[in-house]
C-alpha cells in the first residue's frame, strides 16, 4: 500500500533494513543448519513402453526420455534455477513470512513434443503428435 507522503523516506529505509536483516538471518540459518538442499533441476525419467510390455500395440518409439523437475526453490535462488522475477520475490517473502507464503515451485518451463505410432483395436495405425510430453527445462515459478 502507498504510504502517506510524510515519512515515506524513513519508512522505506526501515523496510529495506528489515529485508536486509531477514536475508542475513536466512543466509546464516542455512549455513549453520547445513541446509544445502539441491536446487531445482531436471532429472532423468525414462518411460519404457518396452518394459511396460506394450510392444504388441505401440510400434514406435520403444520408450522416451520424459524427465521431471525436482529440487528446492530456496533462498538464494541461483541463476541456474531459471527463476521468474516473481519467484525471486516470493522466496524472499517466504523467509519473512514462512507461515503464510509458500516457497516457489520447481516446475517445467519448457516442454517438447513426441510422436507415438500405435495400433488401435481394429488394427488401424495411428500416428499422434503429443505436444508437451518431454521436459526440456525446469525452473522456479
Amino acid at each position, binding site marked *: 500500500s502507498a504510504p502517506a507522503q510524510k515519512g515515506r523516506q524513513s519508512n522505506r529505509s526501515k523496510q529495506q533494513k528489515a529485508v536486509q536483516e531477514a536475508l542475513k538471518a536466512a543466509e546464516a540459518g542455512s549455513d549453520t543448519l547445513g541446509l544445502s538442499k539441491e536446487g531445482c533441476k531436471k532429472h*532423468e*525419467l*525414462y*518411460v519404457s513402453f518396452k518394459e*511396460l510390455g*506394450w*510392444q*504388441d*500395440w505401440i*510400434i*514406435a*518409439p*520403444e520408450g*522416451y526420455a520424459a524427465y521431471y523437475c525436482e529440487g528446492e526453490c530456496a533462498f538464494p535462488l541461483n541463476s541456474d534455477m531459471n527463476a521468474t522475477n516473481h519467484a525471486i520475490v516470493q522466496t524472499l517473502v517466504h523467509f519473512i513470512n514462512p507461515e503464510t507464503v509458500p516457497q516457489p515451485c520447481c516446475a517445467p518451463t519448457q516442454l*517438447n513434443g*513426441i*510422436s*507415438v*505410432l*500405435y*495400433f*488401435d*483395436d*481394429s*488394427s*488401424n*495405425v*495411428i*500416428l*499422434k*503428435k*503429443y505436444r508437451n*510430453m*518431454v521436459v526440456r527445462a525446469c525452473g522456479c515459478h
Partner: protein
Amino acid sequence: NFSVDNEVGSSFIHRRLRSQERREIQREILSILGLPHRPRPHAHAKHTAAPTFMLDLYNTVSTEAEPRAYSRYRAVLEGQASAAVSPQDSRFLDDADTVMSFVNLVDGDRDLLVQPHTQAFWFDVSRIPEGEAITAAEFRIYKDFIQERDGNETFRVSVYQVLQEPPDSEAALLLLDQRDVWASDDGWLVFDLTATSTLWQLSPEQNLGLHLVLEDRNGHKRNPRRAGLLTGSGPKDKQPFLVVFFKVKAVRFRGAR
C-alpha cells in the same frame, strides 16, 4: 535399485516395478494418450503395408531428440515394399496433429467373383478421433509390373464413391479420381479422397464404400488384376489402405480426474 548408464553417458535409477505400480503407471499413461484401454490389435496386422508407410511418416516427423525408430517392427518390415512418403505427404504431415491409416474391410477378392470388373473397398472412418478435422486423405493401392503384357499397353484406373446401392440395379457412382498407367508401371497409386472422407466423417450413413474400375485403351472394363493391381489377395505388404491426416479443431481440455 540399481543405476544404469545410458548411451549419452548420464545415468538413472532403474527399478523393477511392482505389479500394482505397473498397472497404475499403465493406466496413467493410457489416460495421457487419451485411450480408454490398452488396444488389442490382430497379430497379423503388423505385416501389412499400412504400418510400414506409417513408420516412414513417423521417422519423417521425428526430431533430433527423437531417434529414428528401429523397433522390432523395423526388422519385420525390412525388405517389404515401402509405400514411400512423397513430398506432398511430408507437407500434409507438417500440418497434421494426427495421421491414421484404415484397413480395407471388404473381404479379399470376394467381390471380383460377383463383379469381375469392379473391386469394392470399405473403410470404417467412424473411428476418427473426436474434435479433429480432416486436412487430407489418400487411397493407396499397389500396382505390380506385368511381365506377360506389352510394356506399352495402357490402362485407366478410376475410383468411384458409391452413392446408392439398390439391391436389384446397378450402384449409383461418383467419379473421384483417375490415373492412366502403363503395364510396365510398378509402385503405389495414390488417389485423393479428402472430400469424400470429410463427407463420411460428417455423415457416416453415406459411407457405402468405393469402387475401383479398370478400363483398357478401348474403354472396355477389365479385371483389375489384368493391370497388376493388388486389390485384396497377394502379398500383405502390398495391401491397399486409406491414410487420413487430421488437425485439431479446438484446444482440448483434459477432464479432471
